[in-house]
């Protein structure tokens, strides 16, 4: 019913150009672009760090670095990948696509949106600065505790821990701002007629993500604040001598940490069905079932955290509770898998790069989920815990389920965002190289873990040599393949075949009704949904 012009500026068209455009922008697409670019850069930074680790693990013995430095690389790699690569990528898509998909003029709170992004570079600086400071004799390098920052190790650690703590604080503020923006945008900015149950799945995925962030990120902030005061101001939260307990840190951390894995994945579960339906040329299967499953997973994810430390010493009833509740998450997750497969079932499929990534994603993420189920078994976990099996498990969920999902999204929306088609052939090569080298990197790690190789060690027993060598070689192949991705993106931004508005034959949704690239103000007139 509304045909009102939906965008309005205070003083018209005072838009700075050059660097100032990016520093000061309040436009959702500009901010989305910054998030995505930042994410790509940090993906390469975090990737290089872990290649250093894989180089050290190429053969037994200490070759390249001190164990302390090895530990720093591992921890910062994980923090960078989770907080500076995967999360910003999802937020970048939210910025770019949510307003387009729900027919909004922009994100609801544009200035906060800008702030949310501009907190990230300072956070990244805080996280990595200690590497540089150490070169000048200040401190002994970055945080060396692993991304989990468990006390008491983190209480005793050097200046890098303090930097990590404040980095987490800035990242946390950024996530909270991003979540506020997403929630408000979805609840208040939808086009007339778009009821909640008519929303694109991506909006559902992100809405639940945002709720999870609001509930858990502040708990992490609290935990690292206690860590800071335990380190410098004499409190005893994590210290038995004062009546505290290091295990308290684990509870607080994983109360955030487990929902965090869904925070990383729910946005992907949101847009993946859209990709699947596009390249299957039929409607998404089980919309309602998917929405309810997303809610169920979101709700369950905050009550299962202690499965990350089954071996720490908990009463048996607690073990049983956390085991069964964890396993019950597989039920809604199975519903999702069923819907994804049913969406492509008997479709008229075509395999452009986004679809290749999407189908590969279903399979590889499936392996991640199944191995998670194994870990959730208390008795079995006693053997698997803190072994390379866990490392392989969460890379199937986070690299395959997270990063490869994001890549599917990048190829899917890149033509819409840039107005050009990317190089399809390079895209396909990128997919196959990534899929093969990814499996070559991480399948050996399942076996290493089963054979007893612990995680987070720079040196290992001789019997693990061959599989580590394979894994290291494949990891370098995996890393180098990503340069193709970067090249393809850069070329696509700079030029290429003109993309049509609809881009993909089977594409459905409001974002495909706008030109490619969309105009600066997306929907100056809000569309009406019937």
């Amino acid at each position, binding site marked *: 019913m509304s045909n009102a012009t939906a965008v309005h500026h205070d003083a018209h068209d005072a838009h700075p150009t050059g660097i100032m455009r990016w520093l000061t922008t309040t436009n959702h697409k500009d901010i989305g672009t910054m998030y995505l670019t930042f994410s790509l850069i940090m993906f390469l930074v975090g990737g290089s760090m872990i290649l250093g680790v894989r180089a050290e693990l190429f053969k037994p013995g200490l070759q390249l670095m001190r164990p302390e430095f090895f530990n720093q690389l591992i921890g910062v790699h994980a923090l960078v990948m989770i907080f500076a690569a995967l999360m910003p990528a999802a937020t970048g898509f939210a910025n770019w696509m949510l307003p387009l998909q729900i027919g909004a003029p*922009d994100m609801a709170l544009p200035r906060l949106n*800008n702030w949310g992004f501009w907190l990230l570079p300072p956070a990244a600086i805080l996280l990595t*600065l200690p590497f540089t400071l150490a070169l000048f004799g200040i401190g002994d390098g970055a945080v060396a505790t692993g991304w989990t920052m468990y006390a008491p190790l983190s209480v005793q650690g050097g200046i890098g821990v303090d930097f990590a703590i404040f980095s987490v604080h800035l990242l946390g503020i950024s996530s909270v701002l991003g*979540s506020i923006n997403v929630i408000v945008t979805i609840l208040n900015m939808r086009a*007339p007629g778009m009821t909640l149950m008519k929303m694109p799945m991506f909006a559902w995925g992100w809405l639940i993500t945002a709720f999870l962030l*609001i509930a858990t990120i*502040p708990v992490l902030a609290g935990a690292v604040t206690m860590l800071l005061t335990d380190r410098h101001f004499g*409190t005893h939260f994590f210290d038995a001598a004062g009546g*505290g307990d290091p295990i308290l840190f684990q509870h607080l951390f994983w109360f955030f940490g487990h929902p965090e894995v869904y925070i990383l994945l729910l946005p992907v579960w949101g847009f993946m069905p859209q990709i699947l339906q596009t390249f299957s040329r039929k409607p998404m299967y089980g919309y309602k079932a998917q929405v309810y499953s997303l809610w169920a997973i979101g709700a369950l994810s905050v009550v299962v955290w202690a499965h990350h430390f089954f071996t720490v010493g908990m009463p048996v009833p607690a073990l049983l509770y956390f085991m069964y509740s964890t396993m019950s998450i597989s039920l809604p997750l199975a519903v999702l898998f069923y819907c994804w497969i049913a969406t492509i079932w008997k479709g008229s499929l075509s395999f452009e790069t986004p679809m290749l990534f999407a189908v590969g994603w279903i399979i590889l993420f499936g392996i991640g989920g199944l191995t998670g189920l194994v870990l959730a078994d208390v008795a079995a976990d006693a053997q698997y815990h803190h072994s390379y099996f866990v490392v392989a498990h969460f890379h199937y969920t986070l690299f395959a389920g997270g990063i490869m999902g994001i890549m599917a999204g990048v190829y899917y929306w890149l033509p819409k965002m840039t107005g050009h088609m990317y190089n399809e052939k390079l895209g396909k090569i990128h997919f196959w190289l990534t899929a093969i080298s990814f499996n070559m990197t991480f399948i050996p790690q399942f076996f290493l873990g089963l054979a007893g190789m612990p995680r987070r060690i720079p040196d290992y027993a001789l019997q693990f040599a061959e599989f580590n060598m394979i894994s290291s070689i494949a990891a370098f192949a995996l890393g180098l393949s990503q340069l193709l991705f970067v090249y393809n993106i850069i070329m696509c931004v700079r030029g290429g075949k003109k993309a049509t508005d609809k881009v993909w034959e089977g594409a459905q949704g409001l974002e495909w009704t706008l030109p490619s690239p969309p105009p600066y103000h997306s929907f100056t007139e809000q569309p009406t949904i019937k």
Partner: protein
Amino acid sequence: MSSQTHNHSHHYYVPNPVAYPVILSLGLLTLASGFIFKINNYPAGRWMMIAGALIILSMVFSWMGKVISESETGMFKSWEDKSFRVGMIVFISSEVAFFAAFFGALFFMRVISVPELAHFDPNYTMYKDFVASWPSIGPGGNVIRFGGALETYKPAANFTPMAAWGLPAVNTLLLLSSGVTVTWAHWGLIKNNRNQLIIGLFLTVALGISFLICQATEYHHAYTEMGLTLGAGAYGSSFFMLTGFHGFHVLLGTIMLIVILIRSIKGHFTADRHFGFEGVAWYWHFVDVVWLGLFVFVYWL
């Protein structure tokens, strides 16, 4: 959230590009790194902290000033107003989660870790004589601190916990009445009775400041006479972190109330459009509710 389908009969206000957020982030970076340097014994950190704080203050001041002037020139209609409201609710929810972390730590130590420390097999524990009780400041022993420094922690012998029915009860009264006065001020605003609005806000600010003075007195007393410090084991840690963060929120709330008071005196807000007032009032009620939790679980039980 039902109004999705309503007719947005006007433009949504998308503000022009601004430099406040990016400079604000720079200020936070400067403040945080300065603080880190300072607590790691690099005195130059102090100057970074001062610089960072100044940047932050000036940015918050200009940013809020800009929003106020937009509000007063009628840029925000009901569509934007709803965005602010939903946003504020979500923000307060995140604050609830932050306090929940510290309450969680309190319950964990009180219910799990302190009793456990007292119930190990006497042959295998170094805490043989430790009795589980609450308030507890722990059994004492060696602690390895930041940078590997070994420190022996001896719980204070003359430690007394904070009693609920002295100053804390007065503080409860103060905050509860301030919840009433701010609501009374709101009624005044709705009825277009500006005097009631201003007097109500003034009383609220006065109550907030009195609360802060009482809390400062209480802290002083704890440190100088009761052996109750931040370092006093599980009890001291949870006591000061919970009440301290709460006090910090009262301080912020009071400052925001002062801003709202000044705006009211200047004639800002109308009976039907006053998100600035309501946002602060909600925040104040939230701070109030947290205090009730503190009073029951930290002071009383």
